[in-house]
């Protein structure tokens, strides 16, 4: 149900963009107004979500660790998996963000001959990593459409990505990897029963949306070519706040742009916010130094404390009478 709902939602978006441009001639709406609204929603929504997370107190020091913590001097500490310093946390976070360290530990649990057994399950890690890196490279590559003089590092990335020199225009390896990994990530949700059971429309929709964006981009580059110089004019017009709608750009470009606008606008509302959220995960971004530094719960409100000194002051006479030792005479 959630699969079909997400699938037809993306199809409806494609049809909306096609009809809007091809039939209703709303190039300005789909090429300028909607992208601007989407960018504003994305950046402001992102900031709002992060600030909202930032305003939530962390009552306990709760890093999840998996190595020897700092202890007696002759016990070797695992400084990365169980960091006690900021430097360790930074290295741990970098491994998490860049290489998905915790997903690398993914395990498969099975009952075999009545015994519970655990096995390696690296495919999700591999596909996830390939997916995210390809997406990043494709995103960075697109900056050639937004900058008048494309910086050389973007040209270098593009050169490496099309290194195999297959066909013309040159085939980008990341395009193939992205299509393959998104398909894998979708099929995995369909074919693994436990994963399917807990998958919602909010899981399928981004997958179909990204699949739609990738597919329209691939079609546009290799098959139904658009007026690419016009595309850059439009993009440059958007970012220099001087929007123009060049004539003769193919409708598939507007479909691509509309799906991206939807992705941007949907981003802050969705699970895609893990992009910012990974940096704000208390189980990752805290040092395990609870034996060295006292973590004060920000939720603590002033509690009326009756100290022993005050207690003794109140009952000193009675304590002396009863023969209880007192600290102050």
């Amino acid at each position: 149900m959630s699969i079909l709902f997400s699938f037809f939602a993306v199809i409806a978006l494609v049809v909306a963009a096609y009809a809007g441009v091809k039939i209703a001639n709303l190039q300005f709406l789909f090429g300028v107004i909607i992208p601007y609204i989407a960018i504003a929603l994305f950046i402001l929504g992102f900031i709002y979500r992060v600030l909202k997370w930032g305003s939530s107190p962390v009552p306990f020091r709760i890093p999840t660790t998996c190595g020897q913590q700092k202890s007696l001097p002759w016990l070797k500490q695992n400084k990365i998996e169980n960091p006690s310093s900021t430097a360790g946390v930074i290295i741990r976070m970098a491994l998490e963000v860049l290489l998905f360290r915790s997903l690398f530990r993914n395990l498969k649990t099975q009952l075999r001959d009545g015994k519970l057994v655990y096995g390696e399950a690296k495919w999700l890690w591999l596909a996830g990593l390939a997916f995210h890196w390809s997406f990043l490279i494709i995103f960075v590559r697109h900056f050639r459409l937004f900058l008048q003089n494309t910086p050389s590092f973007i040209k270098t990335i593009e050169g490496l990505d099309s290194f195999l020199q297959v066909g013309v225009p040159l085939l980008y390896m990341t395009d193939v990897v992205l299509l393959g990994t998104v398909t894998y990530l979708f099929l995995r949700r369909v074919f693994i029963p436990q994963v399917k059971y807990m998958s919602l429309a909010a899981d399928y929709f981004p997958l179909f949306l990204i699949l739609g964006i990738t597919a329209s981009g691939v079609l546009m580059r290799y098959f139904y070519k658009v007026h690419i110089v016009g595309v850059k004019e439009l993009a440059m017009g958007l970012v220099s706040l001087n929007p123009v709608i060049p004539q003769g750009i193919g409708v598939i470009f507007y479909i691509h742009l509309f799906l991206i606008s939807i992705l941007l606008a949907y981003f802050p509302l969705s699970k895609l916010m893990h992009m910012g959220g990974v940096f704000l995960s208390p189980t990752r971004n805290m040092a395990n130094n609870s034996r060295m530094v006292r973590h004060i719960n920000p939720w603590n409100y002033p509690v009326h404390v009756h100290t022993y000194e005050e207690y003794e002051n109140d009952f000193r006479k009675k304590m002396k009478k009863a023969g209880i030792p007192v600290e102050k005479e």
Partner: protein
Amino acid sequence: MKIYNGGKILLGLIIFGALFASPFYLNMGKVSAKPELKIDTPEIQKLEDKKCVEPKEFMRAEHMQILNSWRDAVVRNGDREQIIISGHKYEKSLQNGCMKCHSNKKDFCDKCHNYMAVKPYCWDCHIAPKEKKS
């Protein structure tokens, strides 16, 4: 609203904004001129019927495919048969075909390729025509 670890969060948000909004401030105050192609070379002036092998829109999108199929035909299959369109013969060749008319690489090929940051590998093998500096 109290923000915990405000400094670090602000730093992260500044990096986020700086990266995602970079096209906006990097292009501020710059005028972006779209490429204007010159198709007034002497060879084209001589043509009565000023037509390429295919219509303009098709050439604009698919010229690389044509060159690629010509390369395969000539280099791999030895098929150098000329292309005849409305009585006019065209060499199946980059240097002797396309560049015969479009002899102004700098004002023709390079205009769009530079604008789009595309680096075609034609000139890895072919020798670019000598041109007067314009």
